[in-house]
C-alpha cells in the first residue's frame, strides 16, 4: 500500500546559491579519484593496480578484503597516476589521469526482456563485478551492502531535502529506461518491496511517476523528509536483526546501464552550489572528479571552503580535491575563521538560527535565504537545552538519550533507543541546531561502530 506521510518536525536551511537548472560550461576535470574513505565500513581496502597502470572505465582497482566479491572500479579510463596513502599507510586516494575519450570494459548485455528472466545470482555477480554494487547501502549501519544478505525491503528516496540539494528530476532526466531496468534488477534481490519515496508537494518527476514494480510513497514536510532513514522509519521501520537496503536513484540508473549497455557508466551530473560560487549550475562529469575546474575562477573571494556534498553531511575538501563517491553536489561557502566583536550578543537578522532566541523575527521572512559561513558560532559545552533535538527529528526517537547512551557506551540502551534506525545524516540537523555544539554525527557513527563491531 502506498503511503502519504506528512512530517511536521524538521527544519529547512535556506541558503543563497542554488544551482540553476541548466548545464554550465566548466572545463572538464582531468583527474579522478576513488577514495576508500568514502565507503563507510570498508575495513581492509586492497588496491589491485599500481601507479603507471592503465585502466578502462569499469576495471577493478580496489576491493575490501572483508567482502572480496564486491569490486570497486575505475570511473574513467586512463592512467593510475598516484596511490595516495596517509598515516600508517592508510589508503586515501587512487588517482586516475583520464583519457580524452573514455573506453569501457565490456560486461554482459541484456535486452529489457532478457532482464526479466535473469537469475538473482547472475544479477548479483554482474553488479559486483561491474562496480555498481557499492551504490547499495545497508541499514542498519549505513555501510556497503553484503551481497550474501537478502534485505526485507529496498528503499529509494526520490528527492533530496538537504540545503541547496540538486533536483533529481534534472539530475536524472532522460534516464527513464535505465532507471526502470535498474528497478527490474533490484526487484530480484529482495523478498519484500521496493519503496520509491517522492516529494509530497509539486509534480513527481516523470522518471519516478512512470516507474513500475515499485511502491510509490509521498513524503511532505521540511528536511529531513528526503532522508531515506526517516522514510524507512515511517514505512517499514528497522528492528534488531532486520536488514534493509537503500540506494540513490543515480545508483539505480547505473545498474540499469550496466545491464542494458554492458558498461560501467560513471558519468553523472554534479550541481555547483553555494553563495561563493559565481557560476552556479550543473556540470556533466564522472564519479570522483577533481573539483579544480569548478572552483578555480568561479569564486567570489578567496577565503572559502569547498564542500563535497551539502552543508549538513558533506565533507571539506581541498580546492583541488575530489568529489565524494556518493555526492552529487559541491558547495562553496565563505570560511568563517574570523572573530566577531560581541558576535554572540548582537541582535542580527543576517544570521540563521533555528532558535527564536536569536532569530526572533525570522518568522516574518520565512523564505529568506542566508549566506552562512563555517564558523561554529560558539564553543562546545555540556548538554543544556532540551526539546530542540526532538523538534527537528521526525522519528519516534529521543536523540539526546540516544547520544548519551552512545557516550556512555551502553549497548542495551543504544539498541532500545533506536541506534539501528539512524545514520549520521538523520541526526545532522541536531548537530546544526545544537546550542552546545556537539559533534552529533561523529557520536552517532561511534555508536554504530560500537554496535557493529562488538
Amino acid at each position, binding site marked *: 500500500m502506498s503511503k502519504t506521510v506528512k512530517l511536521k518536525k524538521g527544519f529547512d536551511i535556506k541558503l543563497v546559491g542554488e544551482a540553476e537548472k541548466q548545464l554550465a560550461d566548466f572545463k572538464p576535470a582531468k583527474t579522478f579519484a576513488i577514495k576508500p574513505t568514502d565507503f563507510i565500513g570498508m575495513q581492509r581496502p586492497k588496491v589491485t593496480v599500481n601507479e603507471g597502470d592503465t585502466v578502462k572505465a569499469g576495471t577493478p582497482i580496489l576491493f575490501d578484503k572483508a567482502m572480496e566479491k564486491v569490486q570497486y572500479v575505475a570511473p574513467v579510463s586512463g592512467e593510475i597516476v598516484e596511490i595516495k596513502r596517509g598515516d600508517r599507510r592508510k589508503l586515501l586516494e587512487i588517482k586516475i589521469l583520464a583519457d580524452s575519450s573514455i573506453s569501457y570494459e565490456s560486461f554482459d548485455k541484456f535486452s529489457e526482456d532478457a532482464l526479466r528472466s535473469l537469475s538473482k545470482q547472475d544479477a548479483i555477480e554482474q553488479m559486483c563485478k561491474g562496480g555498481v554494487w557499492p551504490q547499495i547501502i545497508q541499514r542498519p549501519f549505513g555501510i556497503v551492502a553484503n551481497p550474501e544478505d537478502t534485505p526485507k525491503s529496498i528503499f529509494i528516496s526520490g528527492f533530496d531535502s538537504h540545503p541547496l540539494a540538486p533536483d533529481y528530476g534534472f539530475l536524472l532526466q532522460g534516464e527513464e529506461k535505465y532507471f526502470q531496468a535498474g528497478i527490474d534488477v533490484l526487484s530480484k534481490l529482495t523478498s519484500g518491496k521496493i519503496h520509491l519515496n517522492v516529494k509530497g508537494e509539486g509534480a513527481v518527476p516523470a522518471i519516478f511517476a512512470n516507474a513500475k514494480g515499485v511502491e510509490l510513497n509521498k513524503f511532505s514536510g521540511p528536511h529531513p523528509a528526503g532522508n531515506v532513514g526517516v522514510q524507512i522509519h515511517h514505512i517499514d521501520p528497522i528492528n534488531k536483526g532486520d536488514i534493509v537496503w537503500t540506494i540513490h536513484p543515480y545508483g539505480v540508473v547505473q545498474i540499469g546501464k550496466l545491464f542494458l549497455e554492458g558498461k560501467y557508466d560513471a558519468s553523472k551530473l554534479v550541481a555547483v552550489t553555494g553563495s561563493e560560487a559565481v557560476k552556479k549550475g550543473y556540470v556533466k562529469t564522472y564519479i570522483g572528479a577533481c573539483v579544480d575546474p569548478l572552483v578555480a575562477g568561479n569564486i567570489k573571494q578567496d577565503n572559502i571552503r569547498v564542500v563535497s556534498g551539502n552543508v549538513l553531511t558533506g565533507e571539506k575538501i581541498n580546492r583541488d580535491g575530489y568529489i565524494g563517491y556518493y555526492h552529487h553536489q559541491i558547495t562553496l561557502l565563505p570560511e568563517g575563521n574570523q572573530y566577531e566583536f560581541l558576535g*554572540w550578543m548582537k541582535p542580527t537578522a543576517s544570521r540563521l*538560527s533555528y532558535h*527564536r532566541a536569536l532569530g526572533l523575527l525570522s518568522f516574518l521572512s520565512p523564505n529568506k535565504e542566508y549566506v552562512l559561513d563555517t564558523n561554529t558560532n560558539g*564553543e562546545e559545552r555540556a548538554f543544556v*537545552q*532540551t526539546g530542540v533535538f526532538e523538534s527537528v527529528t521526525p522519528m519516534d526517537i529521543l536523540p539526546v538519550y540516544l547520544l548519551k547512551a552512545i557516550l556512555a557506551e551502553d549497548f542495551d540502551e543504544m539498541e532500545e533507543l533506536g541506534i539501528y534506525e539512524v545514520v549520521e545524516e538523520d541526526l545532522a540537523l541536531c548537530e546544526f541546531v545544537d546550542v552546545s*555544539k556537539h*559533534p552529533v554525527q561523529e557520536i552517532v557513527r561511534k555508536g554504530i561502530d560500537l554496535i557493529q563491531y562488538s
Partner: protein
Amino acid sequence: MKFLRDLLDKQKPLFQKGGKLENLYYLYEAGETFLFKPNHTAGIKGTQVKDAIDLKRMMITVVIAMIPCLLFGIYNTGHQHFLATGQTAGLWEDFGPKLLVGLKLVLPIVIVAYAAGGLVEAAFAVIRKHPINEGFLVTGMLIPLVVPATLPLWQVALATIFAVVIAKEVFGGTGMNILNVAMTARAFLYFAYPAQISGDQVWTYLGDKAPVDGFSGATALAVAYTAGVEGQPVTQALAEHNAALGEGLFSFMNLFIGWIPGSIGETSTLMALIGAVILIATGVASWKIIVSGFAGAYVMGLVMNLFAVNEYMAMAPEYHWVIGGLAFGVVFMATDPVSAAQTEVGKWIYGFLIGVLTVIIRVTNPAYPEGIMLAVLFMNVFAPLIDYYVVKANKKRRLQRATV
C-alpha cells in the same frame, strides 16, 4: 574594535601552553569569548555550517527576561519602605527617592551575588581546567531576586558560594547539576539563617525610621496561613491586612501586580508573566512546564477547596497564583532545562507536580509559609525518574513494533 582584538592577540601567548600565565588560560578565554565570538570553524566532516546561537546567547536571554522583575523589585523595595514608614501613600509619589532606596538595597545584593559566584566559577575553571560556565549569568541574577532586600550581604555571598559549589560544581558544572542552583541558595538560607528569611518583620526595609502604627511586615502567605489557623476567611484577612498602610495592600489586584512585601523579584506575578512571555517567545523556556505549573497549582487549589477543613484550604485557587513566589518559581526556576524533566511528556508531569506540591506545602505544612522552593527542589530530584518512565515508554513502543 581592532585595537581590542590586537590587545587580546598580544596577550594570548602568555596564557597559552608554555606561557607564564598558562594556569589562568580559562580566565583569559572567558574574557576573550565574551568580547569576541571565536574564530572556530566546523570540522572536516559533519555539519559545515552551524546555527548562529550559542549557550551564552541563550543564557543572556534568560537574564533579559528577568529584567522586568528586577526593575519592579528595585522600585517596590523603595515603595514598601516608604509605605511602612508612612512617608507616602501614593504609588508614584516620590518616585526618585523610592528608586534610590531600592537601588541602594538591591544593587549591592546583585553585585555580591555575581562577584561571589563569579569567583567560585573562576576558581573552579582554573583548578579543573574547564571553560567558565555561562550558567552563572543566570544564577547570579536569580539569587538576588529570590531573597528579601534586607538580607545581610554576607549571607548573600555565603548562599551563592554554597549553591555554586554544592549544587553545581561538584557535579561538573552547568549541564551536569541535578538541583536548581538558585533554589539551592535559597534553601541554604532558609535552613541556615531562618531568622533573616522567614521572620515577620524582615521583608520590609525600615532603615533608621520607625514604622507607622499598626504596621506588620508579614507577607501575604504568612497572613493567609494565620487566617487559616484562626478561622477567618483568607480573602477577608488579606483585604483587611495592614489597613494602616492604605486600603487594599493585599487586594487581589495588588497581589497580582506585586505592590506587596516579599523577596525582591518574586512579588509581582505580572512581571513574572512578562518574563514568561519573553522566555516562551524566544523558545528558551518550555511553555509546557510553565502552563502545567500554573495548572497544577490551580487544580490542587480546587482539590483543597473540596476538602476544606480550614479557611486556608478554602481559599480561592487563583490566589495561589498571585501570593508568594509561585509565578516567579514556575517561570524562572522550574524551567531550568538542566534540572527539569528533559522529555516533552515529562515536562507536563514535572510542571504539574510542582504546582501541586507548592500548594500542598503552603496549605498543610505549618513550618514553611512558601512551598515553591521545596517543590522545585523536590521535583528536581524526581525529574530523572519521570524521564526514566517516559523513555521506557518510548523503548516499549519500539519493542512492540518489532513483534508486529
